[in-house]
């Protein structure tokens, strides 16, 4: 992983730093709670936690504007929280309840919000990549200057449809930011066991797409890179690739024994590179807030997460009639 660049820039405002701190902490506490509920049997099936990668979505959302779109894989809880979706609705979807974003019919991997321009939540590795290009295509077709963030992992980066999409995106100058969240492991396979071309962003060059690698444990670096990529797209210069070097602390899913890496490896990154800790230090060093202030924020966030968990437990299961609804639309959905 790249060494952290110095990011204690004087032009970062107090409000901005505190916002990142809150947003990242919300994701972490939410995911810890989801892990707990999974252990209690309240969440079933696959549940992929985002802990460790929080700076990626928080940094990029900070570079997005209203109306920009995003689409991601099944490791999607962080993306939904970062784009402003309600933690209650997300958690209730995890518990398969009527109050969930998909009325309990999608689950952890399949959630959507038209309001927040969040287009899923896709369970098939890399399927979201051409879909994201299609979203970008729709904005270009309609003549807006909106941008689509297409998130996928280092595992998905080896899928053929990513190559197909790069080719079309550059061919048609689609306003798409390809975000490779390189968390070093495709399920249990490390990058070096999956490819001899480990610098994923460089593959864009084969299609004429510019890009760069970014320190994904530094939310400010991510935001800066996001702004550059977005400006590139909005200027009509076509797609841009950001390979964001990050790390997943937890297993691939809840059922992952994580035998493919050492406990020490994980511990070292948690201690030395943690993105939330980094922002916390910047806040304290810059005397933007006191330790007590941060504790108060922690408490607020815990309350939000607890409230979401309570909602997710209390929300009823979907009505049995829901089995046969939403298979066909009767009227044209207003997607855009």
């Amino acid at each position, binding site marked *: 992983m790249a060494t952290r660049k110095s990011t204690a820039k004087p032009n970062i405002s107090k409000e901005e730093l505190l916002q990142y701190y809150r947003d990242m902490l919300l994701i972490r506490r939410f995911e810890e709670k989801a892990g707990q509920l999974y252990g209690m049997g309240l969440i079933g099936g696959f549940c992929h936690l985002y802990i460790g990668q929080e700076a990626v979505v928080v940094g990029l959302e900070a570079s997005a504007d209203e109306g920009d*779109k995003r*689409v991601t894989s099944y490791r999607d809880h962080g993306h939904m929280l970062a784009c402003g979706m309600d933690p209650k609705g997300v958690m209730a979807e995890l518990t398969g309840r009527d109050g*969930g*974003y*998909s*009325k*309990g*019919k*999608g689950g952890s991997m*399949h*959630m*959507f*919000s*038209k309001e927040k321009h969040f*287009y*899923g*939540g*896709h*369970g*098939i590795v890399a*399927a979201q*990549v*051409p*879909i*994201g*290009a*299609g*979203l*970008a*295509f*729709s*904005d270009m*077709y*309609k003549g807006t200057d909106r941008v689509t963030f297409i998130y996928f992992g280092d595992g998905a980066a080896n899928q*053929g*449809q990513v190559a*197909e*999409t790069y*080719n*079309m995106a550059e*061919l048609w100058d689609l306003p798409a930011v390809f975000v490779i969240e390189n968390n070093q492991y495709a399920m249990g396979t490390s990058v070096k066991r999956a490819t001899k071309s480990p610098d994923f962003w460089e593959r864009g060059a084969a299609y004429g797409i510019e890009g760069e690698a970014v320190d994904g444990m530094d939310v400010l670096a991510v935001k800066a890179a996001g702004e550059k990529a977005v400006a590139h797209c909005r200027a009509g210069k076509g797609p841009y690739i950001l390979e964001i070097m990050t790390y997943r602390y937890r297993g691939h899913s809840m059922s992952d024994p994580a035998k493919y890496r050492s406990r020490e490896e994980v511990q070292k990154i948690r201690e030395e590179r943690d993105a939330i800790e980094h922002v916390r230090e910047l806040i304290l060093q810059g005397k933007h807030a006191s330790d007590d202030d941060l504790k108060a924020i922690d408490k607020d966030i815990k309350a939000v997460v607890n409230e979401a968990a309570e909602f997710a437990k209390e929300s009823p299961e979907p009505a049995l009639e829901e089995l046969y*609804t*939403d*298979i*066909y*639309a*009767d*009227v*044209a*959905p*207003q*997607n*855009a």
Partner: protein
Amino acid sequence: MATEILMPALSPTMEEGTLAKWLVNEGDTVSAGDILAEIETDKATMEFEAVDEGTLGKILVPAGTEGVKVNTPIAVMVEEGEDAEAAAAKAQEAAPAADAAGKAAPDGGSAPDAPPAEPKAAAPAPEPEVPEGTEMKSTTVREALRDAMAEEMRRDDTVFLMGEEVAEYQGAYKISQGLLDEFGAKRVIDTPITEHGFAGLGVGAAFGGLRPIVEFMTFNFAMQAMDQIINSAAKTLYMSGGQMGCPMVFRGPNGAAARVAAQHSQDYAAWYAQVPGLRVVQPYSAADAKGLLKTAIRDPNPVIFLENEILYGRSFDVPALDDFTVPFGKARIWREGSDVTIVSFGIGMTYALEAAEALAKDGIEAEVIDLRTLRPLDTATVIESVKKTNRCVTVEEGWPVCSIGNHISAVLMQEAFDWLDAPVINCTGKDVPMPYAANLEKLALVTTKEVIEAARQVTYR
């Protein structure tokens, strides 16, 4: 020794063409590889090259002649000193009889039945949706599909067409002819050869509020895109609790063409018909092709629109209405009858209608039902018919296991058991990959003869 130059088959399904232009004159010396003529097929204008050297003795078919059957002598090459007129006379004498022409490949001699002659489309029972006295216009299925897309693109500017060769080439099968000129490159988009990618891109564009028509050059290539069609297009409305629909059409030719072997000759009707969330349409006539495609483009759900290459060039009457649509889920009774119900769809209708005509000569009156859409499936019309005829034969080109016919049989067993006087027979393609050899291909396909035999079997006659 004079050599005849025969009208070439320039595509697997070409049976006749137009001799557009001769590029050589009588008396010219030609070498192998010289362009002799331009020939228009049902899909394209092709240059036709000489394979031998010699002198073009006599042109037998003048430029501008339409409907020249494949294998008809079109000119004679002579060697030095040969009498061109005599050679020409001899060639014309030996010209194949009209009924033997029109087959690109040699007829498989060992196949059990005669090759189906180009059937004349039976006159359909009047479409109930069409007001009486409506003017009808003879239109090919190909033109009908193009007209449907053009009309819907004029009506709704979020509709666009993308696929391989749809724009500048005017469609691999000429379905999109003229659309680029009218709608421009923004709305008629040539894609790279990237089925998985552009199918997924189409899904995203539909999520983004557009109405894509994704053309697969053939549905055989859609297998590369299967994940996007099933997992992304069909399931997202459900997985999103009704928030995120996917209003789009996947269309292209499906099923066997002619002599293109296993990987290019599969009928996917039963595969797609199994998937909740998809609409599946397989028209037979040009009117249905037009009316159903217009409905498909307007439908808020993902629609699989299965066309057939062999039907593209067939003409049918199409109502000359400003906005002619055909609803989904409504079968059409092409022929009323009291003795047996023959249920089919798509090109299977060719065999069903031929069989019904032959059976009528023997006093067996078949009721022929064209399902038109496979999802939703109009089982009510089939059940009603079987309550009248008490017998049923299904006809489709696809494989026998888990076929549409199997499903209809099960529905009839459950819902019309007391009305059945014989087990339902499913006439299908054979349970083999499509062979290349002409005789084996003929054996692999469902035939009119098989439909006739099945009808006799269920009527015990």
